[in-house]
């Protein structure tokens, strides 16, 4: 029996990659090729497929992978906003602890321009790579926002005056500080999560449970809690 009990695991490239590979190695998976070949996507002999983090729930939901590892930020962004709306239907089995980041609302240092806009114009403009998380946060706090979706370098948006605030993921706050932005609100803390396909969770129950038990038994460092924080600016993939 292979180290992953014959299961297929979707592994995220990018910021969570190292933590994930460390975890697989701690489980006894042969990871040297996975580490060295960053152009290969399918590692059939060890039951691993690699992809960008935001694609992990897609592959797991469809059953192309039994299990996957991705950030809570990705799961929140793809989750249903309201009952019945239909988000990605995957099971969240375990908080792996590594890749710890905080989703924050930030704006330019000094008097908060977002507050000023809200007071004078009744609405703040807000740039983000996470439009659904941002919209939900504004809705839950009873404020109106015009959400501007950008694909990269969110910090640029308030500096050019296009928006008054941003919602983004930060680990250390360095990038924010460098761009003269301050954190105004912390929305949610995000870590790496282990997710499962709904049908695999039943039909491959014993394999999944055995893997879960071994994951829970791993010492904290091996579960990635000792791994470095997620580097800045490497979030949604």
């Amino acid at each position, binding site marked *: 029996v292979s180290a992953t009990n014959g299961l297929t695991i979707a592994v995220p490239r990018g910021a969570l990659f190292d933590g994930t590979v460390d975890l697989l190695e701690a489980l006894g998976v042969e990871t040297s090729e996975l580490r060295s070949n960053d152009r290969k996507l399918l590692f059939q002999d060890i039951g691993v*497929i690699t992809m960008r983090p935001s694609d992990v729930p897609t592959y797991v939901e469809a059953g*192309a992978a039994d299990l996957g590892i991705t950030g809570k930020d990705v799961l929140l962004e793809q989750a249903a906003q309201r*009952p019945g709306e239909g988000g990605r239907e995957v*099971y969240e089995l375990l908080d792996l602890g590594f890749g710890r980041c905080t989703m924050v609302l930030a704006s330019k240092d000094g008097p908060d321009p977002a507050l000023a806009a809200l007071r004078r114009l009744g609405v703040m403009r807000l740039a983000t790579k996470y439009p659904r998380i941002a919209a939900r946060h504004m809705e839950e706090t009873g404020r109106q926002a015009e959400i501007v979706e950008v694909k990269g370098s969110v910090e640029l948006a308030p500096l050019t005056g296009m928006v008054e605030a941003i919602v983004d993921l930060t680990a250390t706050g360095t990038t924010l500080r460098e761009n003269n932005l301050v954190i105004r609100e912390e929305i949610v803390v995000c870590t790496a999560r282990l997710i499962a*396909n*709904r*049908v695999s969770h039943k039909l491959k129950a014993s394999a999944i449970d055995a893997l879960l038990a071994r994951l829970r038994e791993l010492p904290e460092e091996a579960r990635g809690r000792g791994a470095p924080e997620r580097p800045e600016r490497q979030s949604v993939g």
Partner: protein
Amino acid sequence: MIHPIPSGTRDVLPEETREVRAITDTLRGVFERHGCGEVYTPALEYESVLARADMADARPAYRVFDEAGAVLVLRSDMTVPIARVVATRYATSEPPLRFCYFAHCYRGVRPQRGQPRELLQAGIELIGAPAPHGTAEALTVLCHALDATGLKDYRIGLGDASLFPALMASLDVPDSARTSLLETLVLRDFVGLEQKLSEAGISGEAARLLIEVPQRRGGPEVLADTPAQADEAVTGLRQVHELLEPAVAERVIFDLGLVRNIGYYTGAVFDVYDPALGTPIGGGGRYDELVGRFGRSLPAVGFALGVDRLHIALAGEERGTGALLAQPHPEATVTARMAGTS
């Protein structure tokens, strides 16, 4: 000219229709042989009538007004309309009543494989069929029907909708926290479940049970040494299992965390899984209080299969390439064009 149709709907052309028809004809034959008479009901119903049922996530999504200003909805399932039919048209008939249907239902879901907004459901409802015999009968019809279509590798996940609420009640979980915990379990967000338990101030043995019990699934051995708080539900499941013929019983996977996203289920609930599809093909359960809400109190059980999903699973099994069966393509030394870049 290309004229669009709404997202989540589609046209079914003759080649596919022939295959779908073969499936529904087979199912109809089995349902009829088990004494289930086929019914049609209107696709449009009064919202106020369907609102008597607690549909939760499966509530109707499409509304229109009629000429008198009444709000009509497109039905989102067939169980609630049949409960209405029973109370209205069979108010004094001797139970049990057995019905089957083949009908399109409409849901505001995110369209994806096997999950359209207009979905063809095939199912049965056994009204006045109490547990455990009624449940065993429904499971038997379900397996006979799937066997008749030629589906090979399917399994039935069997749980009880009352188990987790009973567990919460007996472990003194505050009322205020129960709904949110149950919603979290419906999503099988076990990380969230753990967080919410600690937020609600539940710790120690109670928290351990509330996390561990719903993750139990497998053969009859999962019914052994369950906590006393789950006794009623577990006894019910055991009784159902004992009534099943061997060929049906061996399809069953007990799943103590099974909760369906429809609110009206009261007892045993089940889902149908096939390795050829990453989502359940169908499911059902007991709804002992639903018919009573329409004015005739009768215990009941039923199931619905998504005909399109069944079709996909059959095709997948045939090719040996269903979702969970898929072996990556042998030549797939696929290299990333721009691996890991955004």
